[in-house]
């Protein structure tokens, strides 16, 4: 393989490749910057040192990552189930639309991070409160996108179903829900990142394990390289979770326009 071919292949529009390439580039730039500017190690350690620290004690970090991941997935699942049911209720019932939806809008305008201490008072400092915070923060994205998806049905499609004397329930699960799936997945991609944010917030407030806890306790002892290990692991976790949802989306709705050509669905995740 010639050098040109190698470069071409590396830059080919292959997602896994380009992701790795971009990340490797970023780390390289970081390493070079540290070499040139030589900041004190407790301000900005070089990535090689951070990586070394991680490799030194993999079981330790894996254990904390597992705590965070578990709470995040749990919170996400709760948000998904509650969110989809709430959305169906809002779309099908005027009363729920006027009450629940209004309430959710109000709730969403509060920075939900501010609720974290409350949850801990109510539910204790165990995993349950972190799951609850995570679910609360992730819920909104699921509800809003599912409502949108359920509502944006072609009226003629509903006429068609009605002409076949479909019941309301049949219209829901044979027409509205499948029609809402692309929108629901867009919401899930946002929600999965939000769920992770929620868990870290919970771990910041109180916990005895998890990557948020690792960051807080390392910061307490000025172990800045360890803070960086945890942050990088969080980045990896978030990325993997996002692409896991993306993969499931491809498997569940291969019929959707965004997947027919095999191109990646462009979705943006807001950061908090």
């Amino acid at each position, binding site marked *: 393989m010639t050098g040109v071919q190698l470069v071409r292949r590396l830059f080919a529009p292959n997602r896994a490749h380009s992701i790795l390439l971009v990340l490797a580039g970023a780390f390289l730039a970081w390493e070079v910057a540290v070499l040139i500017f030589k900041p004190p190690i407790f301000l900005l350690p070089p990535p090689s040192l951070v990586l070394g620290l991680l490799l030194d004690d993999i079981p330790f970090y894996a254990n904390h990552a597992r705590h965070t991941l578990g709470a995040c997935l749990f919170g996400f699942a709760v948000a998904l189930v509650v969110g989809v049911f709430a959305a169906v209720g809002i779309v099908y019932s005027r009363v729920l639309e006027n009450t629940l939806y209004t309430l959710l809008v109000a709730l969403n305008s509060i920075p939900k991070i501010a609720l974290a201490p409350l949850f801990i008072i109510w539910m204790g400092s165990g995993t349950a409160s972190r799951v609850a915070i995570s679910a609360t923060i992730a819920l909104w994205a699921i509800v809003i996108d599912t409502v949108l998806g359920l509502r944006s049905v*072609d009226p003629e499609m509903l006429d068609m179903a009605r*002409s*076949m004397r479909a019941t309301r329930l049949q219209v829901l699960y*044979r027409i509205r829900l499948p029609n809402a799936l692309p929108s629901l997945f867009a919401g899930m991609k946002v929600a999965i990142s939000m769920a992770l944010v929620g868990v870290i917030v919970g771990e910041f407030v109180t916990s005895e394990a998890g990557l948020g806890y690792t960051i807080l306790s390392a910061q307490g002892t000025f172990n800045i390289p360890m803070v960086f290990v945890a942050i990088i692991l969080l980045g990896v976790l978030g990325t993997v979770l996002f692409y896991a949802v993306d993969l499931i989306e491809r498997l569940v709705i291969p019929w959707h326009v965004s997947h*027919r050509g095999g191109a990646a669905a462009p979705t943006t995740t807001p950061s908090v």
Partner: protein
Amino acid sequence: MTTGATSRGSVVAPGVPYVDAANVDKIYPSPKGAVTALRGVTFDIRDREFLSVLGPSGCGKSTFLKCVAGLTDISAGKLTVKGIPVAGPPANMGIVFQRDILLDWRTNLENVLLPVDFRRLSRKEWVGRARDLFALLGLSGFEDRSPWELSGGMRQRVAICRALIQNPELLLMDEPFGALDALTRDEMNLELQRVWIADAKTVLFITHSIVESVFLSDRVVVMTRSPGRVLDVIEIDLPRPRELNIRETPQFGTYVAHIRELFRQMGMFARSP
């Protein structure tokens, strides 16, 4: 009037039309001012008759079809199907809409079986008929493909299979062949005539094509510009089954010329052919 050979007996009492519209008005309320889509529409569709409705765009043809289908209420007048005032979609009805409205998340075969699923019938018992319809409409081999893998004409044919799957007594078709090229359209006209003769359905067929309406119909209803009223009802007394070349006969030409003249009187040239 000539009707095709019938495989079923009459489902309405003698003398009672299958669909009967008397002075039907339809007004769509709207914040920007109500739209009168139909005004005093009066005509009937006889049992096992093939009836076409012709009219300028926006004159209320689709609206009338939706009223018959029970998908929208009439504002005034009387509209009965089999002697009973329309209140909601009747059983034994199939519709082909102006757009195909296939579900992307179902295969073509599953789309055709949608009415079967809605009625909670066994797919197994209907899949054979579904495949026969695919073959009849030249779609064999596309059963397990998705709608988005088909051309516009093929999609419309899938929609026709879906309307026919339960062998409805009443078939409502809203410009089903509008999106097809001329050759496929001819072929579909022959196919539709065959289905109609074999299964003896009552058909309400909406079209923009004068030639198509004369070719297929027992009677043609011509509507005026919006708000739609009935301008004329023309009996088409041509023998069945009709071959495509019947369109070159002088008798056929006379019907077409007559209808074209009606459109000219409305101050417009009918869309050809």
